[in-house]
């Protein structure tokens, strides 16, 4: 009887092994595309082993296209122009591409497989994106639900970014969360500091990454991130500046102000910070110090839900009515907004319609 069982197991395994062998051999012969060349922006040529997705081929070469879902084709963040050799648009890409993008050869780099020589076009800024390994150096409680976390980069690494850009933090699995996720956070420290960055992270109920940061991370923990991403950064002009932020949106604004402090400026700047109550205010002293430092900078916190008991002397209600005093010349004013999508939409609408600021002068970073 035992022999019978063993015989059957052996036969069964035999069938499995033979099929697996056939597949392994087939993969060897069939999926071997040899070495192919990825031409980037007509300038740089990368030689890679064919057969992988464009996204992973590029990240093997230390070029990081933003991707939030990790290459599963659900987020649409990894769009890039594929000029030649990308093959037809796949059904998995269609839902995430607009008609204009399709006409413009825009593809999802996580879905495009590199099988032959391929030509792509990506923004130059992406070349600066690197992967960093860091150790948590400091965690400060700014409010009951907002923490400032400082990450010290490992020896030999240094980050190059523009004030206002963001990084993508990689979580590690914790408790019930089995998967790694990537989430974007604006850098709140100035670009002049290159061996460490600070992020300001607000606890979002049920948020996978913010919960991880708030409940799991301790000083000394190792965290990886990629960056820097984004086209929300301080433009080097002489125009007046209107900063508008809510919640943890003050992070990129803080970075911009600290950067301006380093390089010096005489631009007229006003910073409106929207919060619910006095409990949600933070970085007050730093902002007052900026007011002292700059020739023409004003910090205006506005509370939407201040209670009697708080004895709040400052401004209340919506932010928008108070812009009037801050805008001298709408044609010569840039606005930098960072906050919830709702806030951004309302402020943008008001700036365009009520104050006549050109849409292209309004830069924003919305927490998606």
């Amino acid at each position: 009887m035992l022999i019978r069982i063993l015989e059957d197991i052996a036969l069964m395994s035999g069938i499995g092994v033979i099929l697996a062998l056939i597949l392994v051999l087939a993969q060897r012969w069939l999926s071997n595309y040899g070495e192919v060349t990825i031409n980037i922006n007509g300038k740089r040529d990368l030689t890679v082993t064919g057969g992988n997705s464009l996204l992973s081929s590029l990240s093997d070469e230390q070029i990081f296209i933003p991707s939030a879902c990790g290459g599963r084709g659900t987020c649409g963040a990894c769009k890039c122009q594929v000029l030649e050799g990308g093959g037809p648009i796949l059904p998995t890409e269609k839902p995430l591409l607009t008609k204009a993008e399709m006409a413009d050869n825009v593809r999802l780099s996580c879905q495009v497989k590199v099988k032959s020589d391929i030509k792509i076009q990506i923004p130059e800024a992406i070349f600066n994106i690197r992967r960093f390994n860091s150790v948590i150096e400091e965690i400060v409680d700014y409010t009951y639900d907002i923490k400032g976390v400082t990450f010290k980069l490992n020896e030999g690494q240094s980050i190059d970014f523009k004030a206002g850009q963001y990084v993508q933090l990689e979580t590690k699995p914790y408790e019930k969360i089995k998967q790694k996720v990537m989430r974007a956070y604006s850098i709140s420290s100035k670009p002049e500091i290159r061996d460490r960055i600070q992020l300001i992270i607000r606890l979002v109920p049920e948020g996978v990454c913010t919960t991880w940061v708030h409940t799991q991370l301790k000083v000394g923990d190792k965290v990886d991130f990629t960056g820097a991403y984004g086209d929300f950064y301080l433009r080097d002009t002489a125009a007046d500046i209107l900063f508008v932020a809510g919640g943890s949106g003050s992070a990129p604004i803080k970075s911009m102000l600290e950067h301006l402090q380093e390089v010096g400026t005489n631009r007229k700047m006003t910073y409106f910070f929207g919060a619910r109550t006095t409990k949600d205010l933070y970085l007050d002293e730093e902002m007052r110090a900026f007011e002292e430092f700059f020739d023409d900078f004003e910090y205006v916190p506005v509370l939407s839900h201040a209670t009697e008991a708080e004895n709040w002397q400052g401004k209340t209600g919506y932010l928008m009515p108070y812009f009037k005093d801050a805008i001298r010349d709408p044609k010569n004013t840039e606005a930098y907004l960072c906050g919830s999508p709702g806030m951004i939409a309302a402020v943008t609408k008001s700036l365009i319609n009520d104050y006549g600021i050109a849409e292209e002068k309004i830069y924003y970073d919305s927490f998606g």
Partner: protein
Amino acid sequence: MDISAFVLFWAAIFTGNILLTYFLGMCSYLSISKEIESAFGLGVAVIFVLIVTSALNWLVYYYILVPFHIVYLQYIVFIIVIAAFVQFLELIIERYTPALYYSLGIFLPLITVNCAILGVGLFMIIRQYNFIQTVAFAAGSGIGWLMAILMLAGIRRKLKEKMVPVGLRGAGISLIITGIMALGFIGFSGIVQIQ
């Protein structure tokens, strides 16, 4: 079974439709029937995989499982063969006919878990078909499946513009429609019985 392969082929399409009579292969039938083109692509892939894997499984069954007395392992072996073949097929198509891969490729992995494929494999054993009968039955079943999913996709396209009660949208109304189509197919069952 002394039924002609030709009769078997037609019977598998109409009187014993794998989907509308046996309700096999429902998952991909419900999920890929939103657009006619995708439904057609999947259907063609099913036909092809069904014919080849049924033939392979027939050979494996009568030349390996029966002689070595491990017929009781047929479920596992059939599934492994199907999975391996689909993988293999995907590699070949991806390499040599990229155009076909782009239109068919994403459906192939779905087919591995399509119960219609395993169903045909098991029917051919239970009903003791010979090799020719098996291939005819598999081809008929595949075409029957394609026909069913195309009909549903067509109806669902019309349905998009119609008011469907909220609770029935999606799978609910699709199952009701499938039920009605199945009732319609009972009309064919008098022609020939293949049980």
